[in-house]
């Protein structure tokens, strides 16, 4: 297949349609409008494809929940404030075990914030986001190629675990163009028995999250928890970059990880042995893999385009086995590799 130059937002749309997404609902918000527009343009030329510009993000998430229950592969997308609105529906989809893809092209926050690239929604994405005891798988792509690959994988995992899956990128990932090759999507595996399509002549079924009996509700929660445990055991993804001889390791994801790679290149040119640990799944977080690194590296620096959210997960992972510093640029300021290199160099020398 040919390499094409596409923007991140368009890549997600194209990958979704190729993966069999046949229902998309969304509401315009910068910096992800190109994705909504891409779906509007391409769903109408896709057999059985449905595009709806919804009246709100709340409506969009519930539309995809309905379409998911009816058996379609579904996706919605938004940016930070819109994702807050979708949380009710995401919680509901988790409760009802409905597969679906939610794309968050993050912007500066809190509140309306701005439309610059940011990573302030890490907590919201990785802690479930909505109310109740649930998790969503969270992919954090760092290149346009990964956007394409992970979008396709997200549909497979959503079906496999009957769970909403979030793709967490930022405004830069959405706007940036890079060459991309679309891989061949896998055939869908999803049992008919989970699909609501009318009872026919058989027994009727219902899909619900309301379970009034406390013991039944507890069992439902434990059932979900067991599922999340299996996900945590099987679906962790991460990248290690130049850690073989590293004296210091940067932990960063998405756009921040790219900047970190640029910084590491500069530092290595100056003889500083710095590596990168990049979580690709933010939930489940590659906890044990990161902890294993602390056996030989004692100096970590977390770099995020936030005031320090993934930092918590790094602390939980390293459990005090290593020193952890933090550098953050919240609110939409994208730091340069040279700025980060200076910060790293300062902490590198501080190593005791």
């Amino acid at each position, binding site marked *: 297949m040919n*390499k094409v*130059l596409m923007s991140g937002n368009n890549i997600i749309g194209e990958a979704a349609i190729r993966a069999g997404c046949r229902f998309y609902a969304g509401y315009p918000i*910068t*910096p992800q409008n190109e994705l909504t527009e891409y779906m509007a343009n391409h769903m109408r030329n896709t057999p059985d494809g449905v595009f709806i510009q919804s009246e709100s993000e709340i409506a969009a998430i519930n539309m995809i929940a309905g379409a998911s229950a009816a058996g379609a592969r579904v996706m919605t997308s938004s940016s930070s404030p819109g994702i807050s609105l979708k949380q009710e529906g995401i919680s509901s989809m988790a409760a009802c075990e409905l597969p679906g893809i939610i794309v968050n092209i993050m912007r500066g926050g809190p509140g309306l914030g701005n*439309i610059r690239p940011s990573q302030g929604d890490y907590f919201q994405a990785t802690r479930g986001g909505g109310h109740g005891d649930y998790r969503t798988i969270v992919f954090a792509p760092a290149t346009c190629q990964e956007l394409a690959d992970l979008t396709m994988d997200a549909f497979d995992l959503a079906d496999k675990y009957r769970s909403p899956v979030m793709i967490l990128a930022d*405004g*830069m990932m959405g*706007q*940036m*163009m*890079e*060459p991309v090759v679309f891989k061949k999507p896998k055939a869908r595996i999803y049992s008919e028995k989970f699909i609501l399509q009318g009872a026919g002549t058989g027994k009727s079924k219902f899909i619900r999250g309301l379970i009034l009996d406390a013991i039944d509700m507890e069992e439902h929660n434990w059932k979900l928890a067991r599922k999340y445990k299996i996900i945590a055991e099987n679906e962790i993804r991460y990248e290690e970059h130049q850690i073989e001889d590293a004296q210091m390791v940067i932990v960063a994801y998405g756009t921040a990880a*790219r*900047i*970190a*790679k*640029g*910084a*590491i*290149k500069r530092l290595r040119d100056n003889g500083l042995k710095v590596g990168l640990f990049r979580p690709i799944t933010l939930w489940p977080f590659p906890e044990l893999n990161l902890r294993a690194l602390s056996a030989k590296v004692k100096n970590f620096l977390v770099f995020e385009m936030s005031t320090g959210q993934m930092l918590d997960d790094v602390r939980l992972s390293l459990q005090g086995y290593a020193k952890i510093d933090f550098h953050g640029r919240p609110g939409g300021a*994208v730091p*340069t*590799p*040279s*700025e980060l290199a200076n910060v790293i160099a300062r902490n590198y020398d501080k190593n005791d």
Partner: protein
Amino acid sequence: MIVKTIFSGFGGQGVLMMGLSLAHSAMNSGYHVTYLPAYGAEVRGGTANCTVAIADEEIASPVASEPDYLVAMNSPSLFTFQNKLSAGGTIFLNSSIVEDRPNRLDVKVCAIPCGDIAQELGNSRVANIIMMGIFIKKTNIVPAEMYLKNLELIMGSKKKTVAEVNRKAFAAGFDYVSDN
């Protein structure tokens, strides 16, 4: 090798097209490439810019903190980006409307009246393609023919006349300057 270029100008001058066509040509020449448009609240007539990175290895940051080249199609672009340019870099100026000159001595300046050349060609809208002719000649990042092929590819080759106009404009820029 990694080369980063910022294209900047008024919205409507076609600066995004300049970056996009370069990125396409570089991709199809086998390079790693990123194209990052500046985005914001939608305003017609505002400033537009984009950053293109071209490398023979994986590109870390698509942002250019120290670009090698700046293509400034208007004065505000020159003021905004001239201090970012890496020492020894080149600033390409559309001298038809940019009267100022950089206040740095450690960069090369290539000032070409693209707007006037375009007028002479009878189409003021091709100033950007003329500038690309100059840019490709001077930087030699991709072969001229490769660039033109990709430009036609992304412009859509529906209208043969458009392609002809662009080829002429590109040649006018390309032949206007000597290589070095």
